[in-house]
């Protein structure tokens, strides 16, 4: 069952962090290790997409297993035949909703979609997607930047889905984006992080949260993202299209925590040759030396 205490975001006002320490998964994570995006505080560094789940029940179970507090939804034509309400499910799970502009190919369409999302869901947060190619679903950088600027000027909190380009990241932050969401690999490809060096460079290039988005195929990809310095990871297909989505959602939750802890712990440098971890001195001599 959903644990409302865990879902509730800590704020300076309520100082609410209880529930975290009671969570065995979070036992090693300092309770103060919170993610803040545009003033909103989150316990979980895992964002979950709602697409691809076979049923709303499976989505709800996966949200619970993931511990995610922020989930994306798309905006589409009303279907009078649709069964069940996605919004009711998200309400019940106590998660915040992050609408996206998925499917938009121009800045104009993305801006209009963002405005409709604000009207529909009473949130000025938008995961901005402007796609430039149907086969790869890669972002169209010039249109993305244009849309981001227009939406920031209109008061939106903009989280842009972007290529793994440190220069573009800086440009998006320059126009006022609240976070950047670089891809690891194309959406739904499950190819992991194809250019870890660029993700590291993006982390260095900007001072807003970096959320690895797209390409995650399994838990180790999410861990790597966090080890590279990302502040959070967004997953959708990796969970919803896994053979056991609920188990994969749990795995992603552990993976993000593990990567975050490892990043903070400071890994050892890579070396070509071995460095013995047992003492060299005090070795027994089992046969006579010449």
């Amino acid at each position: 069952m959903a644990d409302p205490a865990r879902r509730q975001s800590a704020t300076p006002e309520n100082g609410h962090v209880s529930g975290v320490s009671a969570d065995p998964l979070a036992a090693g994570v300092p309770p103060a290790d919170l993610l803040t995006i545009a003033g909103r505080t989150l316990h979980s560094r895992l964002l979950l997409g709602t697409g691809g789940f076979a049923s709303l029940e499976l989505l709800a179970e996966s949200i619970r297993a993931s511990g995610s507090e922020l989930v994306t939804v798309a905006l589409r034509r009303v279907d009078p035949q649709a069964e069940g309400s996605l919004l009711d499910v998200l309400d019940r799970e106590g998660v915040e909703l992050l609408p996206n502009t998925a499917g938009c190919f121009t800045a104009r369409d993305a801006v209009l979609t963002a405005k409709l999302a604000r009207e529909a869901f009473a949130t000025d947060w938008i995961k901005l997607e402007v796609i430039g190619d149907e086969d790869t679903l890669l972002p169209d950088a010039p249109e993305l930047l244009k849309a981001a600027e227009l939406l920031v000027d209109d008061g939106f909190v903009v989280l842009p889905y972007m290529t793994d380009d440190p220069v573009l990241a800086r440009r998006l932050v320059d126009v006022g984006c609240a976070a950047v969401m670089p891809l690891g690999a194309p959406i739904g490809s499950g190819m992991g992080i194809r250019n870890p060096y660029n993700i590291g460079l993006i982390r260095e290039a900007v001072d807003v949260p970096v959320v690895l988005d797209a390409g995650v195929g399994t838990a180790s990809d999410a861990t790597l993202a966090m080890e590279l310095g990302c502040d959070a990871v967004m997953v959708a297909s990796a969970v919803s299209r896994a053979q056991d989505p609920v188990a994969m959602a749990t795995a992603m939750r552990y993976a993000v925590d593990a990567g975050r802890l490892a990043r903070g712990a400071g890994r050892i440098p890579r070396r070509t040759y071995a460095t013995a971890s047992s003492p060299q001195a005090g070795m027994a001599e089992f046969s006579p030396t010449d």
Partner: protein
Amino acid sequence: MIYLNGTPHDDPGEQTVAGLLRVLDLESDARGIAVAVDGEVVPRAGWSNFAIPDGARVEVLTAMQGG
């Protein structure tokens, strides 16, 4: 004739957004709904009196699983 979510729709009867929402079995206080007419947002406050011109493309949108 107008286009309601891409489908030609004759004789709208009540040519307001609220009237068209009823065609989709939606009440004017339905949550999580947004409406665009010819590429412009029609805010909820205008649903009862926004006159829909002939030939308009009306899009009625809501949350779907995605992303």
